[in-house]
């Protein structure tokens, strides 16, 4: 299953200068400049930033505030394309050192789909990484760029080794989804240091540590259930490694770097082909007749992608990323960015118009919650503005996966209310330090 490219090059691409959390890039081009594919158009100004490259050939028609899939307007470079596939010379780098790898990553603009630039995940300032995870649970096995599953598996292994080298970690793991049989089959029997690997299921207390010992290897492949959501990293880290990440911290605080399949692939390409990150694979979902996976240039407006599809009915909603946590767009001018994994289209009929009723305490949300919160109580407290009580009920642990809102038969906007309360709490307790408890050590150092 190879991904399809768009039939035509879009007339105009919009490349945001900030496609990551952190500092926006400084534009390197000005209006009227000619750019080539892969040319650097935005340079990072600090460590917490990542370069931006042009994905087309053409002329810069402006550097302006343009709509972004996250809902805001972001300074972007608008390029009018010309029919040309001319690229800048790509220089692959053979056997890079650790330092070089980090620079390659920043130069190639490799960014995690959740926003952090990959080099800051692997080499965070003042922290030491000892374990690198590739989260392959949410992306389909091929990621759109491979001809066979085996190729995918061996490239991922190479990418993992590169990531481990860049971070200086000795251990690494690839986490695939339990029900994703293609991936599991692909990884089954991949040779690492002359040893064949077996895909290990993460069950109960058997977490990664167990399998590192069991398989006598520093690299393992494990499978677990799918986890969806926005703030899943801490939850994911706990599930996989058993390391608890304190509130307000991220996995790097406990020495874990979580990378996505896309950034791993981008790093592989950057090292072996010298290609910067200017193309990404997205999937289409909803009432459309589309190739499942599409290889698109970063900056392609959604409307050019939607035009390639045959859509039954009238489009009611365009959603960047999935239906559970994605952001509905007010315009189809928004471009694909490094954080876009999926475009979902809903028809006018599919757009929900439910009215919230009173909570009937049916406890479906309680059963659905992966972090054992009580959304029944939280949403009422949030609605009444009783944020302190929300905090006492550990609202900060919410990973915003949206399952409670999905399950609610009264159609209450639980996720929205919880986010509202979390926001309010964050603003009120900006300088608040978490309290020490038996399993939570202070100073973000984590622990088991």
């Amino acid at each position, binding site marked *: 299953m190879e991904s399809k490219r768009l039939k035509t090059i879009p007339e105009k691409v919009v490349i945001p200068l900030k496609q990551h959390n952190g500092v926006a890039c400084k534009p390197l081009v000005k209006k009227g400049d000619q750019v080539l594919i892969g040319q650097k158009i935005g340079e990072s100004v600090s460590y917490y930033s990542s370069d931006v490259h042009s994905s087309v050939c053409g002329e810069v028609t402006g550097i302006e505030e343009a709509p972004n899939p996250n809902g805001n307007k972001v300074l972007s470079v608008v390029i009018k394309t010309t029919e040309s596939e001319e690229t800048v010379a790509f220089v692959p780098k053979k056997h890079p050192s650790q330092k070089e790898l980090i620079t390659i990553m920043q130069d190639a603009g490799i960014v995690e789909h959740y926003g952090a630039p990959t080099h800051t995940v692997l080499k965070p300032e003042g922290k030491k990484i000892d374990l690198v995870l590739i989260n392959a649970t949410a992306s389909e096995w091929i990621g759109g760029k491979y001809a066979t599953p085996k190729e995918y598996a061996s490239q991922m292994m190479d990418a993992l080794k590169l990531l481990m080298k860049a971070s200086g970690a000795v251990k690494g793991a690839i986490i695939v989804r339990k029900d994703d049989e293609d991936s599991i089959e692909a990884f089954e029997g991949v040779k690492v240091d002359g040893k064949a690997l077996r895909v290990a299921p993460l069950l109960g207390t058997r977490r990664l540590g167990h399998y590192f010992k069991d398989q006598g290897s520093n690299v393992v492949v494990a499978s677990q259930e799918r986890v969806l959501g926005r703030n899943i990293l801490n939850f994911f880290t706990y599930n996989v490694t058993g390391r608890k990440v304190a509130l307000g911290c991220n996995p790097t605080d406990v020495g874990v770097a979580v990378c996505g399949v896309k950034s791993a692939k981008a790093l592989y390409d950057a090292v072996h082909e010298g290609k910067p990150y200017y193309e990404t694979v997205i999937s289409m979902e909803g009432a459309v007749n589309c190739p499942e996976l599409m290889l698109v240039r970063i900056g392609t407006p959604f409307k050019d992608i939607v035009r390639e599809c045959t859509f039954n009915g009238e489009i009611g909603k365009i959603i960047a990323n999935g239906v*559970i946590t994605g952001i509905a767009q007010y315009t189809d001018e928004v471009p694909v960015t490094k954080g876009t994994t999926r475009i979902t289209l809903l028809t006018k009929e599919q*757009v929900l118009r*439910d009215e919230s*009723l009173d909570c*009937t305490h049916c406890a479906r949300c309680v059963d659905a919650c992966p972090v*054992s919160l009580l959304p029944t109580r939280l949403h009422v407290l949030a609605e009444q503005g009783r944020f302190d009580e929300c905090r006492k009920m550990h609202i900060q*642990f919410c990973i915003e996966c949206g399952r409670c809102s999905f399950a609610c038969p009264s159609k209450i906007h639980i996720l929205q209310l919880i986010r509202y309360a979390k926001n309010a709490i964050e603003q009120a307790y900006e300088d608040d330090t978490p309290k020490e408890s*038996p399993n939570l050590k202070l100073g973000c150092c984590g622990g088991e």
Partner: protein
Amino acid sequence: MDYTISAPPHIKSKFSFRSINRAKILALIPVSLASVYFFGIPALEIILVAVLAAVATEYGIQRIFKKKVTIMDGHAALIGLMFALLTPPEAPIWIPIFGAFFAITIGKHAFGGIGSYVFNPVLVSWVFVRSAWGGFMTPMSIPNLGQLSDLVLENGAGLLVDVSPILLLGGVYLIYKKYIEWRVPLVFALTVFFFNQTVAFFSAVMSLIQEGVLNPLMYLATMFIFLEVTDELSYVMVGIVFFGILFLATDTPTSPVTKNGRLIYGFACGLLVSIYGYFGNYVDGTLYGIFLANAIAAYIETKTLPAMFGHESLLESSYRRIMKRIPSSLKFEVISDE
């Protein structure tokens, strides 16, 4: 082109309050038809009148207090139907009317409507009517499982709901289809079942002790009582108990929301019903038992709030404490090389 914007999630599950109520009503229709077949026109009158009265009362209240009229969600109809099924067929026609009226006004709306009431409105009304007009509300006979055909059509049925235990098993299908949650009914049913068997077992053991039997095999043989249908159990296998387990105890606003809380609530229901039923009769026992269990539901909920995510449970921490005490020479453990 205009696009809709809204907060995620953009799709929601197909369950709605309305569909859940409809499913429950549909699951109760077979037993209603059976009661009409068994008792004739009076049963039909009672069911129709109670449902109409409940819906009319809800409509009236919501109009008077200028609230949104919610009769279409089926909750009022469900309450009316459930009350009708708890009425004996000989009752005068104003009993179901008043019962449905009382259930909606006092049971449901006086406490604040859907999701806010403390006691199941059906039970509130039933307890009131039963105490006020005991003569009309006392069933003519108490059902008892004599032969297996009683499971299909109970000849000793006193209330409408008693006519056919097997037709109430539509509730089990609702559990399978996830319209009803499984924890409360499962634990409730197990408790009621094992309470009677355990009592029978202990009384057999006690009688052996009194006879002065010393052979341990005789004592072991009493374990077989768990496999027999004892006399007490035959009083349990009646429609009203099934109805209580599947429809009354699973009323969501009156049961706790926490996972452990629901298990405990199911056990509390089972225990109270068994005590009432064992020493009295299971018709009143089921209804009073669940009514009392409703009273402690909120307490159970506040006592079983889940701990912080990733927090050690009591079992884990005690295990860890014990393992700490054991000297390391006795432990078989792979010592980590880090």
